[in-house]
């Protein structure tokens, strides 16, 4: 039967595009023939702003990239600056940084899985996810006073030391979370409808995933065992025992399972970090090295100079953010401001694979596949 093609404009205001993303869909009835993501609705010129601000002033802007998990953004920029200037970081500060980043990974995956399930029509998971997320956010609040945009990790260390009562609360969270993940698995994993919607949907092979530059759980869901924490270790990850979770199928279900497994691994990492946490200083100075004093929090935070000039040079620094490889390319010309900041964001690279994944599928499958890619538009558009 001859039928007309239907052109559907999904977004930028649509309940399940997770922000202001727009898909141009050429449809044959319910079947997608072509899908074109249209980006740029949230472009704020963050990279250009990087050239306008001093090194320390730019850190809060990194919070606004992937606002669901802001600690890794903080960290990777700071890491780039530290590599550029050759700043030594006290061990305790690295431990605190890993705690924040792994907690943030759990938060990110909770939001990701929750919104995936909500897109599929099961609204319960997001509420459960946000219940646990709230506990984690309270930990963040205790740590640095902010819940989503932290500005906590600074060159040479962290802004403030761990407050009193933080570690017990974290332990409680870890214990609680273990049970909760079991709950999620009971609710979701063996649900026949969920399996029907996720298995063999949005399949992308390992080779294609690599070609598209996908990273993170989306890549590991295609069976590529690639994790920067293992492949190019940074911070204290070489000392930690964790396994890289991956699944060979490459479909939406595999990506979902990888996220659940990663949450468990993060819990495992956090437990080790808490157990082996060293005492010591939390900040250092580019000139004088690690802080000689303990001092009040404000004294600690001003120990690192507000304005500092790293030597001229360039550095590309990357880490395994919850969404994938997050890289900052920072060029210094020896002044107080970077000459150039380029951000390689995981969401953007992962998103490019969507048109490949969904051709021949239906709109509901696009929603399901897109949900498992886990994209935050702040990270895509920058």
């Amino acid at each position, binding site marked *: 039967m001859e039928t007309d093609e239907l052109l559907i404009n999904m977004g930028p205001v649509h309940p399940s595009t997770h922000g202001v993303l727009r898909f141009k869909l050429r449809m044959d009835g319910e079947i997608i023939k072509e899908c074109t993501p249209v980006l740029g609705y949230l472009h704020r010129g963050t990279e250009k702003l990087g050239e306008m601000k001093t090194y320390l002033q730019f850190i809060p802007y990194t919070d606004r990239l992937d606002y669901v998990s802001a600690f890794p953004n903080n960290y990777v920029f700071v890491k780039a600056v530290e590599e550029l200037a050759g700043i030594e970081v006290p061990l305790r500060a690295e431990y605190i940084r890993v705690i924040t980043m792994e907690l943030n990974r759990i938060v990110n995956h909770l939001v990701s899985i929750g919104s995936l399930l909500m897109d599929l029509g099961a609204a319960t998971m997001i509420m459960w996810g946000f219940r646990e997320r709230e506990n984690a956010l309270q930990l963040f609040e205790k740590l640095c006073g902010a819940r989503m945009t932290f500005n906590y990790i600074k060159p040479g260390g962290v802004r403030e030391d761990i407050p009193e009562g933080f570690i017990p609360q974290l332990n409680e969270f870890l214990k609680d979370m273990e049970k909760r993940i079991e709950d999620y698995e009971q609710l979701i994993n063996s649900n026949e409808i969920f399996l*029907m919607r996720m298995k063999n949907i949005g399949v992308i092979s390992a080779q294609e995933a690599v070609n598209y530059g996908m990273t993170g759980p989306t890549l590991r869901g295609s069976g590529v065992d690639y994790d920067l924490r293992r492949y190019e270790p940074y911070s204290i990850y070489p000392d930690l025992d964790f396994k890289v979770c991956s699944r060979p199928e490459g479909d939406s279900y595999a990506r979902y399972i990888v996220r659940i497994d990663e949450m468990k691994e993060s819990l495992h990492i956090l437990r080790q970090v808490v157990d082996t946490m060293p005492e010591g200083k939390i900040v250092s100075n580019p000139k004088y090295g690690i802080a000689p004093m303990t001092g009040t929090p404000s004294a600690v935070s001003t120990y690192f100079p507000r304005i500092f000039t790293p030597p001229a040079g360039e550095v590309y620094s990357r880490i395994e953010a919850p969404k994938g490889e997050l890289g900052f390319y920072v060029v210094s010309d020896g002044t107080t401001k970077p000459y150039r900041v380029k951000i390689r964001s995981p969401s953007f690279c992962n998103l490019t694979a969507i048109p490949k994944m969904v051709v021949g599928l239906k709109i509901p499958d696009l929603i399901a596949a897109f949900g498992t890619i886990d994209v935050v538009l702040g990270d895509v558009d920058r």
Partner: protein
Amino acid sequence: MIANAYELIVYILTLLGVYEPVLNIFQLLGIEYVLKIIIVLVEIGILFVFVLLTVMFLTWMERKVVAMVQARYGPMVTGPRGLLQPVMDGIKLIGKEDIVPAKADRWVFTLAPFIVFIPALLVFIPLPFGQSLIISDLRVGLLYIIAISAVSPIAILLAGWASNNKYSLMGAMRAVAQDISYTIPLALAAIAVVMFTGSLSTVDIVNAQNGTWFGVIPRWFIFLQPLGFILFLIASIAEMGRIPFDFQESESELVAGFFTEYSGMKFAMFFLAEYAHLFSVSGIIVMLFLGGWALPILPFVPAALVQLVSLGVFLVKTYAVIFFAMWLRDTVPRVRIDQLLNIGWKIMIPLALLNLLVTGFLITAGVF
């Protein structure tokens, strides 16, 4: 024996000593049919108010059940435990601007919400709320129910078409496809019940479930027709358009499906119809498979209270089914439209036919 609600009203009025003198006055004027019409109107008025109150309660209950599952409180501010929330919602919706999109088909767009609401109310006519609490015991009651519920997809299609919106149209098309494929197993499962009663009358169906086997197990058709019950339940949930089969909306895919463009009171009409539908379909499930208002203890209830107690029994059972539907909504995701049609045509209909065959064979063989 009082057969229906009309006779019940007459009976109550007679007991109060009002009926005879009033009837005499009307007879004197030669217009006793006017009295009949007045009583019927009163009866319909009671039903209407009952349905509206039920719908309001159901919207509140839905929120509370969802909140319970999702570890939240739900509405708490308006009234005790948020009970007045539906009233506030109603006031808000009345106050909203009534928008008709510029390119919409104005007439059809306005008409569709009313068309969807009327069948939702008409379904209640042959539904027995309790012993003798029925508007009219139609001899083709069950057929009437199935036929009337088949009207609502037309209204949905009208709404989707008239909105002149791609999402609305897709939602409407989905709703129609879904309704056609699920009315068949629904009817087939209901026929299996009719084979036992030999009557389409809803009162006969409930009466057939009165009593017990061995004095313990109530004679509900769910025990004779377990497969039929499951098929009917699934088909009903599809018919109601609730998760996991809420394709008319599918808000994450189609924004809000066929009522994307609706606002204000017109939107409220769809909302009312949806919940009226939820209640009526649950009532039908109870009537067909869970014994309607029948309960083994009913014969021991004093005659004066039978109507009240049977109404209570019916409501408790119906709310149990409604609770199940709400619970289901919070636990499972939505299936995909083609998967839905696959389930309907390739699994449900063959199973329903098989159920019919086995039932017919067993009845002929004299097992039941």
